[in-house]
């Protein structure tokens, strides 16, 4: 594509920038010096601009995904009062280097996907980007190796320093208009256009650091081949776990969400802030479990995200070679160039698709992805000492429209949000049930609510069970502990009169820790009454005084009995939901029974925070549990090292 190119004298350039600064319509930010380093900051005068910079401390992502961003205000005096305000201030960013522009276009793929982030979208729409070709290459940068040292898209205007003047490549109508209205320019001559090309061609020679692997497929496969390489542990031994590498990264976009309440306990805000996958609490869930506990695994995760997980998902290497992470890392172990080149010395080819799962995803929710819908608690039933059932109805009286196995994010303003598997089957009824175990802040607060109180609901989210695939099969449900909660949703669906004919025998295995922790005893009694349904219950331990007629022992002790019953393993679909430790053992039992791997469905728990594949917390290797899960076919994910530990 032939781009329009203008030129502007150094002097006119200053006038142009000052004209923009004086125009109240815009907030004008540009690269300024901060001590010996550089930052993007609001400009007061054109002469503050340092277009000769090497690299800024933080990338311009702070203008699109700010360090702290208000998602909504709420008023706790009122039952359910939420207001969302967008940043609509038109902004011009001057002096963005090509690698940062590429990073933004990468972030677009995530934040402007099928579940658009409105905050990000508004900021992107309201921002004009004036880029500048790199004049001084940063010591630690290797962007030329990745081809991000130059770009011909992603900007509105792109400057190139030709010595006595700047060339301006026009990248958009918006940019063209801005230039026409505020600057006096000349057409670039052929010589000048050639000069730009020459600058672009000569730039790579100025780099000290060079990557030995630059092809995304090659890098992906190299990483997979070296998943167990000792290098991860050797390097991460020196990691301070400060996540500085992700904080300064232009392509890192994971975030955390927190509710803050002012001292009057009335007004509050829901804030999102940058989070980092190197931090230990990144994968910590309400019950206290940490899914990526070892620093080695977190350290490796960052590189796999850059070179395999996102690469397989979007087709690009999620590193633009800016070198910020290696500058920021005190023990100097974060440099992707060093790590990749070291891996290259080991060599190897792996199946690059191994950690990624292509799945169709249903998204039902419309509008902003962050704001919950108002719902009301219509019934509360205490099931055990720690579990309580909440029947909830959306205030618009519409059915939730979920599939068995999907989950919702439940909001209590001032406390936060947490994911809960939906416990009732799909129905035209506007009511649905959640069963909640009291473990953390949100669930403790929920315990204090009464019928008629409001909660916020986002969802249904995630991938539920593909019920079509279960038709014509025997079904074996295996659940442990609170796994029975989402399981009930599918069981109810299958036992529904309308659907019962579609499935053959139904066997339900359910293990709890102690008799008093058994959930849904009433429902189980009902299920058992159905034809061709058998239920077997077991508890880990049963103390003297407790009344219990089922088995005693771990859930795995129920399997030998199944063998006696001669089930038809090839035509059986096993559905397994339970605590993380359970899967390994149950799956082994199923394999012993002869159930093929592709016939095993599981539902996994992780820290599902945003529910829409952005915040990064629920990742199991390359997959997002909140998008591709929580229901998975075992055969699809058994190769994911992080799935079952």
């Amino acid at each position, binding site marked *: 594509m032939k781009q329009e190119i203008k030129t502007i004298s150094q002097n006119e350039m200053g006038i142009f920038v000052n004209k923009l600064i004086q125009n109240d319509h815009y907030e004008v930010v540009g690269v300024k010096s901060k001590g010996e*380093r550089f930052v993007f900051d609001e400009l007061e005068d054109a002469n503050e601009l340092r277009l000769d910079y090497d690299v800024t*401390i933080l990338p311009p992502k*702070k203008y699109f995904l700010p360090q702290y961003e208000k998602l909504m205000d709420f008023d706790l005096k009122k039952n359910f009062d939420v207001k969302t305000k967008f940043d609509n201030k038109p902004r011009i960013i001057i002096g963005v280097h090509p690698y940062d522009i590429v990073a933004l276009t990468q972030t677009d793929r995530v934040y402007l996907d099928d579940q658009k982030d409105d905050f990000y979208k508004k900021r992107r729409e309201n921002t004009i980007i004036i880029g500048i070709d790199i004049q001084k290459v940063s010591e630690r940068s290797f962007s030329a190796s990745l081809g991000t040292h130059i770009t011909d898209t992603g900007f509105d205007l792109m400057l190139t320093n030709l010595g006595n003047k700047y060339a301006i490549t026009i990248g958009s109508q918006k940019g063209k208009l801005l230039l026409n209205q505020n600057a006096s320019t000349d057409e670039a001559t052929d010589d000048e256009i050639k000069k730009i090309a020459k600058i672009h061609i000569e730039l790579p020679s100025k780099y000290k650091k060079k990557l030995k692997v630059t092809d995304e497929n090659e890098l992906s496969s190299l990483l997979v081949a070296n998943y167990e390489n000792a290098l991860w542990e050797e390097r991460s031994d020196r990691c301070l776990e400060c996540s500085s590498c992700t904080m300064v990264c232009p392509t890192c976009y994971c975030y955390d969400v*927190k509710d803050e309440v*002012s001292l*009057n306990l009335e007004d509050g805000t829901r804030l999102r802030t940058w989070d980092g996958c190197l931090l230990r*609490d990144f994968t910590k869930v309400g019950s206290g479990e940490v899914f990526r506990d070892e620093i080695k695994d977190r350290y490796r995760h960052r590189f796999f995200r850059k070179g395999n997980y996102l690469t397989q998902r979007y087709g690009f290497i999620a590193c633009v070679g800016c070198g910020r992470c290696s500058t920021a890392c005190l023990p100097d172990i974060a440099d992707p160039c060093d790590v990749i080149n070291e891996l290259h010395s080991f060599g190897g080819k792996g199946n690059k698709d191994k950690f990624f799962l292509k799945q169709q995803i249903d998204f039902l929710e419309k509008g902003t992805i962050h704001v919950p819908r108002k719902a009301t608690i219509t019934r509360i039933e205490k099931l055990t000492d720690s579990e309580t059932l909440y029947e909830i109805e959306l205030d618009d009286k519409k059915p939730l429209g979920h599939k068995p196995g999907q989950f919702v994010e439940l909001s209590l303003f001032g406390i936060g949000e947490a994911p809960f598997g939906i416990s009732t089957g799909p129905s035209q009824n506007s009511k649905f049930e959640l069963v909640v175990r009291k473990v953390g802040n949100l669930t403790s607060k929920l315990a204090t609510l009464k019928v008629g109180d409001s909660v916020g609901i986002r969802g249904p989210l995630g991938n539920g069970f593909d019920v079509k695939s279960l038709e014509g099969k025997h079904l074996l449900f295996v659940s442990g502990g609170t796994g029975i909660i989402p399981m009930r949703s599918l069981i109810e669906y299958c036992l529904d009169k309308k659907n019962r004919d579609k499935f053959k025998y139904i066997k339900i295995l359910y293990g709890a820790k102690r008799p008093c922790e058994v959930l849904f005893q009433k429902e189980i009694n009902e299920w058992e009454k159905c034809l061709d349904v058998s239920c077997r219950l077991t508890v880990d331990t049963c103390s003297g005084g407790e009344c219990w007629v089922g088995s005693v022992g771990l859930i795995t002790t129920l399997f030998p009995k199944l063998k006696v019953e001669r089930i038809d393993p090839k035509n059986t679909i096993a559905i397994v939901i339970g605590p993380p430790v359970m899967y390994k053992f149950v799956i082994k039992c199923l394999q012993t029974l002869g159930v093929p791997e592709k016939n095993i469905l599981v539902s996994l728990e992780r820290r599902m925070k945003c529910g829409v594949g952005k915040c990064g917390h629920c990742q199991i290797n390359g997959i997002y549990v909140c998008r591709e899960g929580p229901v998975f076919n075992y055969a699809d994910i058994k190769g994911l090292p992080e799935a079952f530990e």
Partner: protein
Amino acid sequence: MKKPRVAFFDFASCEGCQLQIADLEEEILDLINIVDVVSFREVMKEHSDDYDIAIIEGSIMRPIDEGRLKEIRENAKILVALGACATIGGINKIRNQWTPSEVKKEVYGNYNLKGNDFFDVFQTKAVDEVVKVDYNIHGCPINRDEFKKVITSIAMGKNPEIPNYPVCVECKKNENICLFELGKFCLGPITRAGCNSICPTNGSPCDGCRGILKKPEVECINDILERYNLDYEEMKRRCNIYNYGKEVCK
């Protein structure tokens, strides 16, 4: 809902953390709206021993203080340690490198202090070395915003979220030049965040007043000292300004 009754107590400290509460300015009015302050010697004459939440400032240095603290623990449903002196012992622990009798002799000379409770000191203890602490509000001084967060959390019946990650996270968000790059030794990488990296943001290295999160591996320390041409002894000294006895480095 009944307002929780709050009492403030101070032990060996500069009382600067209680001052941060006075420094809430207009928001104090909000504070006394959501809790009943029943004892706050620094600003009020009234006092009551009937309280739900005891907020303790200062380190424990003497048997008479230890007894008083245990009584407070008995009375309180929730006990909060306020500020570095209370949460980790802070600078009061610097003197633990000597025995109490050595220190007393150096300070008071040969003056006869026998039988005088006021002068009967033992090695400095943090509050949790004497009684169970429910929540810590870290810092020297505390961060007012964090105090508000903790108080609102308790008032709403939730556990306050105290950051479990290092100061670097906040420092990076604040886009500061890393102090190591300026040739200074900063404890930010291993110190608990929550201060919004206030010292590095103001051009001074972190001294670790919010407590050490992680003891780095020796190789890591050596790499860093070498990369930035820093002195091991200096690092050791800096580590024990607030964290004496924590053995951050060997």
